[in-house]
């Protein structure tokens, strides 16, 4: 029990939870935008890799850090465009296309990295984002170190949560995106372009996913490793459902996941292996499943998810 309070009472724990959550926040927002528009994007895991690689490589080759972020987003957008072309314009299977994109983005990234840097025995480093202090806020006791000593990308992620929520619920664009994911015919009948909205959503969503990857190589760490994305993308797919496709709950889900991970790491470090380590590692997944069961009935999933839409077809 003491251990529990020790951990939960430490500002470092909360800071770690937010740090761990950051890539997930980007990813889950990206997936949420795509799915709100009716497109499942299983390319996320690969887009994470592509974002991690391109952002890092750009900085390594001399671009500024924010230049790297932009390039990562651009790479994500490109893969998103491909996914949108296949699933929205050609109406092909979202599952296959997504997995194909993951395979493609991952292998292209690895292949490019290896071919561009054939002789590395220890991964080269860049000068990554450093935590910034926000005058006033960062100096607050407890709250300061817990919440306000993060790298800029973390703050960017939080800004995006608000932005996505704002656009989704407060603008006609958001209304159109929600409608196109619910029933594309409703959008078409009101003179908007189903294809345009969906392609746009997938491209923007994929760019956000790539930022999740970029965070790993440009903020959480300063080098690119094969395999470093390590399933984070898939977790985002689960978190979107957990969040019932709502940005606020998505943030909450990502933070919960981060907190749990940070907690289990600390517990392992403090009381050691009383049970096999895997039991801890399984917990976030099992808890996600439990959470899913609890929220499932109330979720308003986008009804047109997975359904292609072709103009002039009966649906």
């Amino acid at each position, binding site marked *: 029990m003491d251990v529990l309070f020790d951990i939960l009472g430490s500002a470092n724990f909360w800071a770690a939870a937010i740090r761990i959550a950051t890539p997930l926040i980007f990813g889950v927002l990206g997936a949420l935008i795509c799915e709100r528009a009716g497109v499942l994007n299983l390319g996320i895991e690969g887009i994470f890799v592509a974002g991690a690689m391109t952002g890092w490589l750009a900085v390594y080759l001399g671009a500024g850090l924010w230049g790297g972020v932009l390039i990562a987003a651009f790479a994500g957008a490109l893969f998103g465009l491909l996914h949108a072309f296949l699933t929205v314009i050609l109406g*092909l*299977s979202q599952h*296959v*296309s997504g997995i194909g994109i993951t*395979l493609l983005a991952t292998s*292209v990234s690895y292949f490019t990295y290896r*071919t561009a840097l054939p002789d590395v025995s220890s991964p080269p480093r860049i000068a990554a984002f450093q935590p910034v202090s926000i005058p006033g806020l960062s100096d607050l006791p407890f709250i300061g170190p817990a919440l306000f000593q993060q790298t800029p990308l973390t703050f960017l992620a939080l800004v995006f949560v608000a932005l996505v929520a704002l656009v989704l619920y407060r603008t006609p664009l958001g209304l159109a995106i929600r409608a196109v994911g619910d029933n594309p015919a409703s959008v078409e009948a009101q003179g908007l372009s189903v294809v345009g909205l969906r392609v746009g959503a997938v491209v923007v969503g994929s760019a956000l996913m790539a930022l999740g990857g970029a965070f790993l190589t440009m903020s959480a760490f300063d080098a690119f490793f094969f395999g470093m994305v390590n399933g984070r993308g898939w977790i985002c797919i689960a978190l979107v459902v957990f969040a019932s496709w709502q940005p606020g709950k998505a943030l909450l889900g990502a933070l919960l996941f981060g907190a749990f991970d940070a907690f289990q790491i600390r517990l392992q470090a403090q009381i050691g292996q009383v049970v096999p380590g895997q039991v801890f590692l399984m917990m976030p*997944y099992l808890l996600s499943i439990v959470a899913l069961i609890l929220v499932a009935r109330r979720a308003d999933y986008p009804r047109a998810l997975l359904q292609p839409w072709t103009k002039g077809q009966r649906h």
Partner: protein
Amino acid sequence: MTIRLEPREDAGLGLKIGVSLAAGLVALLLVAIPVLFAGGSPLTAYGLMIQGAFGSMFAFSETLNRATPLILTGLACAVAFRAKLWNIGAEGQLYIGALAAVCIGSGLLQLPPALMIPTVMIAGFLAGGLMMVIPTVIKQRFGADEVVITLLLNFVVILFIQMLVEGPLKDPLSMGWPQSVPLLAEAKLPKLLPRLRMHWGLIVGLVAALVLWLMVRKTVLGFEIRAVGENKAAARFAGIPVDATMLKVALISGGLAGLAGVGEVAGVKGYLSSDLSPGFGYSGIVVAMLAGLSPIGTVIAALFVAAVFVGADSMSRATGISSYIADLVVALSLLCVLVGSFFLRFRVKWDRQSVVA
């Protein structure tokens, strides 16, 4: 001038072959880009790819060997997807199937091969099936999405397997390396040919494809699965037991993935470890969709994916290009074939009719 799409009623065999060839050609053209980027010669690379997949008995056997689990996981996905049960968890079911095989076949039972092999297979089938029945029941009871649950369960299962092979199932003779006790010789699937890795799992896969084909086409169960998959409400109204049908599908789907695991552990590896499958479960999704969920098509698609991977991987070794190109070639081929399937479903028409001013 505008472009219009018209759905095709049914694509003929000629068109199907033509489109497949065209997709393959385009994929090859695209592969030239990374090959050139890496400083290789595309033409040489093509030759080496074909040689690597089909150029010798060994190469071909390796292609078949890799296709074996893909056929089974592909079928697992195909049958579930047909009922709109989105099983993304074939990877986990594969491991659970392999686990069951190891639990039963490593000494718990002493049986002659003729009994042992079927026992191990049935155990793997049931275990894998149960692994899919659980999320299906959760979906039916609580409405929780099976895509996400099956996806998450993959991670849980892998960790569970790691836990077992580091703990209770650990082979005391493995020098501390996390792997399970080996299967008894009686539980191992016989090789099809001496010195080659191909094993009886391939036959199991082919038979499973045939059985599924029969089931979908000819049986009441297949009829009911299609009805439930295409329109649950109408199926329910017509008196088809929707939930029960879904559970049957789940059992079959997970079971087939479980069999893939049995094949890998009893046909290839001999013991269980947490790196048994390089993503066969996920590739199964791709294989099934490429095949348009047709059981026979699944066999062909599995062979295709296996040949592309084995060929490209071998090519990378012969040319000295980074071995990551193998996955890249698979990805490109996959996407090309996917685009090709579009032309099977639609006719593209260019209208010359001017847009009226």
